């Protein structure tokens, strides 16, 4: 989940945002933090108008927490994870894979509910007209991953190969990262890639919002249900109170009109507190991959 934002946000705006963030991260960060600004990192899965979503999310959070809210976006998962683990963010919406990978440094804040469950799948997608029955038919493909730190867009497929003692670099002719699930769909739909690994939640919502994009693809395989990308915070919160108010705001989002509007844009039902064990299947995959080297 990443460049789904980039392709709609003006490049110049992003550049200035990045510059201001650089300044913030070096010196003024501490001062801002103490002044009470909630810094919330996003590896967005956002699909509708990103700027409108960001604006409404920020507005909702500011109103319910009473704090100024700064929404931080980055191109890759890694950057957000790094900001989070380095204590520069109060909380961030990250993926299950970095959460389990940095489990010791992070705490689980909340998990989004999709179809009332904190679960989603990873899809292996191919061209609509392609004749293939499973992952093993994709040997020699050009394969599109979304992000090396993504569970659904990388880890799941890699683990599936590792189960068969295969590695992406040997199995596929070539792989590349699009740094956005939506772009994986584009890459497969256009034919640039023969197959792709994509977030099932994103795929389903895209097929609802932009049917033409997914129409050219089909789901070859869906993974088991896995923990939905969660909201995580540093194990030692920057500010306990701010984190609590943020957590509350998230959990009660579906009780507020503006919050429901935000959730509607995200096609989610709400946020819930879940047991971190939810992500054990993902950590198993991560371990498998790590063992395979």
């Amino acid at each position, binding site marked *: 989940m990443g460049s789904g934002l980039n392709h709609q946000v003006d490049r110049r705006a992003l550049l200035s945002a990045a510059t201001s963030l650089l300044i913030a991260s070096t010196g003024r960060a501490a001062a801002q933090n103490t002044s009470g600004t909630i810094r919330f990192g996003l590896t967005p899965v956002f699909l509708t108008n990103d700027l409108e979503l960001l604006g409404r999310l920020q507005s909702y959070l500011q109103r319910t927490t009473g704090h100024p809210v700064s929404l931080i976006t980055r191109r890759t998962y890694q950057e957000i994870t790094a900001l989070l683990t380095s204590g520069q963010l109060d909380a961030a919406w990250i993926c299950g894979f970095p959460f389990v990978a940095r489990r010791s440094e992070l705490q689980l804040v909340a998990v989004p509910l999709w179809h009332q469950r904190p679960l989603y799948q990873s899809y292996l997608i191919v061209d609509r007209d392609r004749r293939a029955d499973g992952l093993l038919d994709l040997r020699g493909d050009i394969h599109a991953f979304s992000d090396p730190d993504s569970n659904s867009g990388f880890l799941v497929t890699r683990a599936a190969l590792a189960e068969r003692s295969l590695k992406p670099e040997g199995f596929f002719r070539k792989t590349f990262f699009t740094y956005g699930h939506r772009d994986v769909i584009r890459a497969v739909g256009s034919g*640039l890639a023969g197959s792709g690994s994509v977030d099932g939640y994103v795929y389903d919502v895209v097929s609802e919002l932009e049917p033409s994009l997914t129409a050219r693809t089909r789901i070859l395989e869906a993974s088991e249900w896995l923990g939905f990308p969660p909201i995580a915070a540093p194990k030692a919160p920057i500010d306990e109170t701010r984190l609590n108010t943020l957590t509350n705001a998230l959990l009660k989002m579906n009780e507020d009109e503006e919050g429901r509007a935000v959730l509607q844009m995200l096609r989610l039902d709400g946020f819930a507190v879940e047991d971190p064990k939810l992500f054990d299947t993902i950590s198993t995959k991560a371990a498998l991959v790590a063992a395979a080297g």
Partner: protein
Amino acid sequence: MQMSLVRSWPITVKVPLAVASLMLLVGLVLSERVLSRLTDTQQRHLIELSQSYLDGLSSAIAPSILREDNWEIFDAIARAQAVNKSLHPVETIVTNADGIVIAASDPKRHPVGSIIEPTHKAPSASFSFDAGADSANAVRVLSYPGRVAGIIYATFDTRHLAAERRDVVIALALTNGALTFLLAAAGWFLVARMMQPVRILSDHLGVARETLAVRIPEEIVSKTKGEFGRLFRGYNALVRSMKEREDLGKRLAEEKRLGSLGRLASTVAHEINNPLGGLFNALATLRSHGHINSVRDVSLGLLERGLIGIRDVVRTTLTIYRTDRVARNLAPTDIDDLGLLIAPEARRRGIQIETENALRDSVSLSSTPIRQAVLNLLLNAVAAAPDGSQVRMSAQADSDSLEITVADRGPGLPRAGAEILMSPNVAPPPLDGGGLGLWTTSRLIAGIGGQIDVEYPVYGGTAVTLRIPIARVELSNVA
């Protein structure tokens, strides 16, 4: 053949055709210029746009091309194509230095890893566009100092330019066609107007070929200005003078007719007068020697024949141009009569008439014209002969023809007179009155199918011989 056909076309067709041809030529030249300018403009425009497209794309993919980042390049192409819609990019392909495709706008046509043959789009030609073609191609080689990093091939849809060009061609064709037609029509109209006086003139001249030249009516002349006005007035003056000449000719002919009538009258008088002396002679003979039977009979016969001769002269004069003469045949006595008729005149001049009449029977030839003709010849001979000389007349006939010769010892018949005698049908009646007797003789002999010969014997004088064929058919008819 073709040329002569073209030459025979009326000028009202030729001028509009010439105008139309010239306009077509001008139209073609202009169209060629316009189209060539249009092509230049379109090409320049396209080159500028495509260069800016390639510039933008180059800078966007430059970092990714060395990494061969398929997605970034694909995304950059997609964005560049979306941004440069006005350029109508249809296909963009980015390859690495070896020609292996990194990304293409349509990966299905040019999959990642496929090879673009450098032959079909030569990298050296940075831009190619044919006027009216549906697409244009541009190639950009991305190079960093020392090495080629990649190549961008871009194809642009130029159908809108081709359509624009087509529209211009149609507009040019329609405009030129309309102009050509209008100018040709105007040319036809103008020439038809300008040629109107010429047509009037040629119509009048055409009438003149069949009948008499007709004047162009005054209202048309007064309406026509300039050269044609002068031409019309000149033509009318010509017609007037022609008419005057014609009237003059008619008057002259009338006068001539009257003149010849007068001369004829004097001839008749002459013809009548000539035998009168002989007749009076016979009367005198009767008076003094009438009691002698033989003398009385000869004199009465002489009188009768003389009077018949006079009657015949009068009749002949009345019917001088008539061919159906019903008269008595020539008798041997007719020849003797002629001798007697001329005798008084001859005696007066002291000229001796010698007659050799070899005729024994009458000849089936009308006597009147022969008598008149021979009398004329005798009168001429007597008039021409010097005093005291001899005029000889001889007549003989066989079954086919009659031959009468009158010979004198005069100074010789002038050439012109001989001409009149010998060519009866050609010569007009003499204008000056002289030679009218010769002319009449000639006509008379010709009227009965005879022929006249004029000879100049070595001993001097003139011998005129009449040869008249005797028509047997006529004879049998008579019988």
